[in-house]
């Protein structure tokens, strides 16, 4: 813009625009520099490490450079972990978001009593630590745990089910845990979005004869689209980086059928022989996956 504006006083360096833009830069600089040093520079370093191999204290560039990435194509456990993670993503995220919208629209009803109490109850799981709730879920689903006890007493099952020792039920327990932990979190976003929707729209719809379900489908969801998009991206991102549940609830077992990508990366770094280069390479593959999925979601969801 500077070159198009007529230079009124050529000898003065600090024009109005320059002053303003300098102030802008000065305000931006501290945060930008910190983000650069603590976030972007390490990411760049990690990219370099992902091309290296050898002992952690004496990393050398691999031959060929993409060797670590090549190995991933042969790594059956990593491929299995990708499969597991996407299973969680495809099943858990839609169920969770639908539940969150339903809860939010129920709580958005002005005639509901004890709204604050219900809201707190549904949000409360988000205040628990990831490790803590994973351990509690594991204890609950033990062979002699609470869930088996209740089901036996209600005569719903004849003998104890070993939930965490069967690939399908173990995955189901993790998905159940994720839904319990994160539904309230997403609900809060929807709730605040709904409070921004003009109440008179609903009144008008009711006069036109729309029932509760029609109001949800025709008014609430279309108007909440940007928020659904944001929660969708955040949930996708979070699920692809899932670690605590796999690590603490099932330890990746039985036989790696519940292991997530991040958990496998951790194993490669700290459990077996340390392999920094390979772990960094796998992290970058996750980054690319998150970027692609978020791009698709933005494209699909944002039709303005």
């Amino acid at each position, binding site marked *: 813009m500077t070159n198009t504006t007529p230079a009124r006083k050529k000898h003065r360096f600090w024009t109005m625009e320059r002053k303003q833009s300098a102030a802008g830069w000065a305000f931006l600089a501290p945060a930008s520099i910190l983000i650069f040093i603590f976030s972007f520079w390490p990411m760049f370093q990690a990219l370099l490490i992902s091309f290296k191999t050898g002992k952690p*204290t004496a990393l050398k560039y691999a031959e060929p450079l993409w060797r670590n990435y090549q190995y991933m194509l042969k790594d059956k*456990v990593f491929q299995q972990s990708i499969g597991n993670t996407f299973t969680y993503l495809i099943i858990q995220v839609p169920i969770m978001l639908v539940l969150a919208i339903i809860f939010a629209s129920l709580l958005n009803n002005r005639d509901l009593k004890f709204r604050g109490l219900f809201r707190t109850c549904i949000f409360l799981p988000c205040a628990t630590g990831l490790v803590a709730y994973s351990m509690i879920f594991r204890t609950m689903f033990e062979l002699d745990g609470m869930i088996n006890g209740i089901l036996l007493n209600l005569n719903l099952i004849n003998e104890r089910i070993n939930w965490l020792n069967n690939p399908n039920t173990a995955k189901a327990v993790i998905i159940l845990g994720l839904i319990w932990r994160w539904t309230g979190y997403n609900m809060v976003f929807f709730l605040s979005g709904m409070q921004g929707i003009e109440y008179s729209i609903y009144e008008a719809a009711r006069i036109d004869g729309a029932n509760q379900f029609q109001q949800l489908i025709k008014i609430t969801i279309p108007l909440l689209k940007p928020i659904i998009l944001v929660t969708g991206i955040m949930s996708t991102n979070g699920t692809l980086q899932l670690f605590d549940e796999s690590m603490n609830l099932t330890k990746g077992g039985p*036989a790696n059928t519940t292991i997530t990508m991040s958990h496998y990366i951790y194993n490669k770094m*700290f459990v*077996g022989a340390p392999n920094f280069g390979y772990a960094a390479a796998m992290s970058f593959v996750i980054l690319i996956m998150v970027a692609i999925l978020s791009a698709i979601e933005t494209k699909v969801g944002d039709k303005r």
Partner: protein
Amino acid sequence: MKKLVSLLLALCLLLTVAGAMAAEDGKITIWTWDPNFNIKSMQIAKELYAKINPDVEIVIEEVLSEDIETRVTTAATSNTIDTLPDIMLCQDNSFQKMVMFYPEVYANLTGKYDYEGFPAGKLAYSTVDGQNHGIPFDAGTVVATYRTDILEQAGYTIADLTDIDWDRFIEIGKDVKAKTGLPMLTGQAGSIDMVLIMMQSCGASMFNEDGSVNFVNNEACKMVLEYYKTMCELGVFAEVNSWDAYCGTLANGSCVGTINGCWILGTVMAVPEYAGKWALTNMPKLPGVEGATHYSNNGGSSWALVNGTDIDLALDFMKMYRNVEFYNEILPTTSAIGTWAGAKEAPNYAADNEYYGAPIFATIVEYTAHVPANQTGAYYYDARGALGTAVTNYMLGGDLMSELQAAEDETNFNMGF
């Protein structure tokens, strides 16, 4: 006011940095993990050492073994070895991996420490390229221990379970299960402690002597897996999902007994109401396998000294691990069985254990002498993870040979980097 606050904050920061430095300061810092076991042992060592050298300050910090490994990794890769303590405990199974990948952290103690009297099999865990990097702490000698009151209900005594093979064990186990409804043994699913114990009892391990992985052509391994599956299917061995649940089965009497490293006795003896109801014997052996014994090893740990810190002082302190009085003191409170031959002279080793009402420690020391050696190497946990997957898949109905082949391929893949 604001200036004062920021000044104080800066001071705090400085002090933390200064506090974290474990440089040559005449102070010994120790990282170890179990308050009833190895921390307690170090506290006793500290008290005894105070009589010899009262000027030395010794600080014992509780850090879990996985956390110690993670911290070593971060310290070594970021060139901040001075943030590590002077002495830290290391699992025997990880020791070679840690020394091979972070040689600059672990002090070479060959020629600096007197290893006379420590068994070669134990020292091998912390030896890399003929150079010793560890000071042995406890033995992981396997014991079989059963509840005699439950055995009695089914009409058996501890003598019926002594010096037997696994065929006979399964026979008894089926009978006991039919009469009492309880499994003989329990274990953590997927952790394959039992499988490795059985393999080592006949001198087999996951690796060949040249360090290459050995699953597919490992006859002992195949036989062990078949026995393990049979026991699980018959309900003689019950798998639980976590370590806590396993300890729970010992504490609440939902199994007859257990076969594990002798450090498990601490858990067994933590339940006062079963005192006098447990008996200890050797484990069953694999029938028809050459070199099969009734003895094995599981777990155990050794102390590592960190390079560049107060190493001479630390070495002087570690002379405690060649001290009869020390071993005599730690035994009754921690049940930690030392591997140093001189420990046998300690009067407490020969004495009756109150809980068992028998001289169990003398028995365990006797077993230790017969344990076949084991190969670990840098890829122990990679191989163990792969074998664990194979065992679980085999239990869920997979074909034994193809699962073992998959485990061997996976381990070779990890070793191929």
